C-alpha cells in the first residue's frame, strides 16, 4: 500500500473513532444502558441500526459509548506509560553505568510478563475498574517507551551539538530536556500511536475477562464476552463489537505505520 494510502485510511478510521468517542457522551441513538426486556435480541434494522442485546439495549448506542470508554482508557494509559517510560529511558541514557543497567534490567522483568497476566495480577491486587485498567495497561507500556527513548537518546547524545552544550556547562538534565527530548519526540509519538491500538485491544481483553469496567458502563470487550453464548441465536451481538475492535486497531496501526515511514529517514530514503 502506498504511504499516502496508509496514512489516509488509517487517519480516516482513527478520526471516525475519535469523533464517535467525542459525540457519544452527548448523543447516541438510544440511551446505551437502557434495559428493555420486551425488545431483547432483536436483529439489526428490526430494532435500531445494529439490533439489541440480551437485555434489549441498543447495540449501536453501546458501541458508541464503548468507544468513549475504550479510547479514554487507551489514551490515558498510553500517556501514562509514555511519560514514565520516557523519563526512565532518558535517565538511563544520560546516567549510563549502574543506573542504566539496573533500570533496563528492571524493564526486562516488566516486559517478560504478558500484558494480560500482569493486568490480572494488578486487578487481583487493586480490584477491578477504570483506574486498575489504566494502571495495568500503562505498566506494560513503560518498558516499550523506555527502551525506545534510551536507544534514541544515546544516538543523540553523541552528536556534536550535545558535546558543545556540555562544554558550555549544561547539566545532564538540561541536555536531556532541551536537546534530546525534542529530537526524539517524533519517535515517541509514532510509538504511542501504535501502542494505542494495542491498548484498545488489551482493554477489550481485560473487559472480556471481567477485569475491566464494571457494568453497566458499556465496553467492547464485555459486549463480546456477553455475546458468546448467543452466537448461534444472535450473531450480530458478537460481530458488531468484534468488527469494531478490529477496525479501530487496524486504523491506529496503519496510522502508526505511515507516521513511522515519515519519521524514519532510512525508510523514507527507501521509497
Amino acid at each position, binding site marked *: 500500500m502506498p504511504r499516502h494510502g496508509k496514512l489516509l485510511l488509517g487517519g480516516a478510521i482513527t478520526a471516525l473513532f475519535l469523533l464517535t468517542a467525542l459525540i457519544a457522551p452527548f448523543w447516541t441513538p438510544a440511551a446505551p*444502558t*437502557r*434495559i428493555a*426486556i420486551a425488545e*431483547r435480541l432483536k436483529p439489526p434494522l428490526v430494532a435500531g441500526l445494529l439490533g439489541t442485546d*440480551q*437485555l*434489549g439495549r441498543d447495540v449501536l448506542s453501546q458501541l458508541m459509548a464503548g468507544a468513549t470508554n475504550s479510547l479514554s482508557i487507551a489514551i490515558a494509559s498510553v500517556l501514562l506509560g509514555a511519560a514514565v517510560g520516557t523519563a526512565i529511558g532518558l535517565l538511563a541514557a544520560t546516567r549510563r553505568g549502574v543506573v542504566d543497567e539496573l533500570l533496563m534490567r528492571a524493564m526486562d522483568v516488566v516486559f517478560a510478563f504478558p500484558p494480560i497476566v500482569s493486568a490480572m495480577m494488578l486487578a487481583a491486587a487493586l480490584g*477491578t475498574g477504570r483506574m486498575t485498567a489504566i494502571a495495568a495497561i500503562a505498566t506494560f507500556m513503560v518498558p516499550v517507551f523506555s527502551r525506545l527513548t534510551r536507544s534514541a537518546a544515546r544516538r543523540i547524545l553523541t552528536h556534536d551539538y550535545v558535546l558543545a552544550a556540555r562544554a558550555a556547562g549544561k547539566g545532564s538534565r538540561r541536555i536531556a530536556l532541551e536537546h534530546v527530548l525534542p529530537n526524539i519526540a517524533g519517535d515517541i509519538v509514532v510509538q504511542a500511536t501504535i501502542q494505542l491500538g494495542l491498548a484498545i485491544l488489551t482493554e477489550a481483553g481485560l473487559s472480556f475477562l*471481567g477485569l475491566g469496567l*464494571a*457494568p*453497566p458502563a458499556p465496553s467492547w470487550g464485555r459486549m463480546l464476552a456477553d455475546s*458468546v*453464548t*448467543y*452466537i*448461534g*441465536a444472535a450473531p450480530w451481538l458478537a460481530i458488531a463489537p468484534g468488527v469494531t475492535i478490529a477496525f479501530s486497531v487496524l486504523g491506529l496501526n496503519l496510522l502508526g505505520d505511515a507516521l513511522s515511514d515519515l519519521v524514519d529517514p532510512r525508510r523514507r530514503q527507501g521509497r
Partner: protein
Amino acid sequence: MSGPIGRGIRHVISRSLAVLAICASATLLGLPAAQAAKDNVVIGMGIEPAGLDPTVAAPAAIGQITWQNVFEGLTRINEDGKVEPQLATDWTISDDGRTYTFHLTSGVSFHNGVAFDSSTAKFTLDRARGENSTNPQKQFFSVIDSIETPDPSTLVLKLSKPAGNLLYWLGWPASVMVEPSSANTDKTAPVGTGPFKLGEWRQGDRLTLVRNDAYWNADDKPALSSATFRFISDPQAQAAAVKNGDVDAFPEFGAPELFQAFEGDPDLKTAVGNTELKVVAGMNLRKPPFNDARVRQALMMGIDRRMVIDGAWSGYGQPIGSHYTPNDPGYVDTTGVHPYDPARAKALLAEAGYGSGLSFSIKTPQMTYATRSAEILQALLAEVGVTLNIVPTEFPATWIDQVFQKHDFDMTIVAHAEPMDISIYARDNYYFGYANPDFKSTIAQAEATTDETERLSLYGKAQTMLAEDVPALYLFVMPKLGVWNAKLSGLWTNEPIPSNDLTDVRWQD
C-alpha cells in the same frame, strides 16, 4: 497419467461395492439388531466431580453420578421431594420423637459382596457424625445421641432432641450407606448397594457405570446395562453434543439462551423443571438502610421478577417469594406478598426517609446468572430512585471472605443450592444478619415436630414471615433445563435433590 486414473477408477468401484455390501448387510442383519432395544445411555454433565464419595465432600456433581445409582440410603427422596423407604423397609418413631427404630431390608449386599446389616448402618452413621468426619451435612447427624443394633436387621437411633426432618435427611446423598472395608477408597472406587457399579473413570472425559447384576431389589432392576457420563463444560459444545447425538441426554443443560433451539425438535424431548437453586439478593441487615423493613419491602416491590427471569435466564425459571422452591414439601406461593409496584415502592422509600434517593452497592459474583440479574436489578431499582453500584466480586474465594465471613457488603446476589435450607435465616450471625426470634422459634418447632402436617404448616408460616420481612430479595428458582433423545424415558424433570436416578431410565421403540 493412466496409472493414477486407473487407480482412481478401481478405487471408486471398490468403494461402491463396499457401500453396496454394507447396505445389504444392513437390510439382512441390521434390522434385528435395531429391534433389540438399546440398553446403554450417554449422559452429559457440565461439571466433573473431583471424587465420587458423597459422604465426604459437598459438590452436587458427586450425587448426580452416584446417588441412587451406586449408593443408596436408609431412605430415599423421590421426584416429588417425598421420603420413601429404601434400605430401611419401615420404621417406628417413639411418641417423644426421640427414638427411631428402623427395620432394615434383608438380602442386601455391597458391590464387593459384603452384606448390609445394622452394623454397617451404624458404621456409616458413626463415620458421618464422628469427630474427623468431613461429611458435608455433618449437622444432620449431630442430633443422634446413640446408635443401637439389637439384631442385624434392626437399627435404633436415640436422639438428643426431636428432629422432624431426620427421615428426609437420611435420604440425602450425604447419608448413603457405605461399608468399613471400602469406605476409605470410595472417593475413587465407590462401593455401594446400588443397581450400578463403577466401570471406568477416565478423568476429564467420561465415567461409565455398569449394571450390578446382583442387585438386591428384584422389582427394580434397571433396564440399562451401562450408562456413561460425559463431562462437557462449554455450553456451545454441550449444545453441539446434544444436536449430533454424542450424548443421549443433558439433564441439566448449561445455557438457557441455547436451550430454545431444542424446543420443537421432534428428535428431542425438552423438560423444564425446578432445581433447588434459589437466586436471592441478600442484604446486610446489620446496617442502615437495610435494618429498616420498609426499605427492604420497597426494594422488593421495585423488582419485576418476571423481567429478571426473562433478561437473566431467557424466561426459564419460576419466581419465588421466599427462600423455598416449588419442589419442596409444604411450598406456599408468596410472590404476591410484595408484588411489583414501583409507585408503592417509591412511597414506602419516602416514608422511610429516602424520598430523595438511595445509593448502595451489590457485590456480584462472576457467574452469568448473577451478573445479568444484577444489571436488571440496577435498571429496575433506578426507576424507584435507587442507585445500585455493581461491584464484581470473585466467587468463591473473595465472596466467601468479604461477604460470607466479614459481612462487608450492602447487597449481594447468589444462588443458594441446598434443598430445604430455609433454616439458614434462623442461624446466628449468618451473612444476612437476620435476627427474628419469632422466625427462630418457628423453625425450631418445625424441626422438632414429627407430625408431617404440622411441620409443613410451620414451614408455610416461616415462608410467609420471610416474604413479609424480606431479609433478602427473593428472585427466582433456577430451572432444570433437561433435554434428551425423544425415545428415552425415565429421567427426572424436577430436581428436588441433585441427582440423575437411572433406575427407571429406558429406551422406548
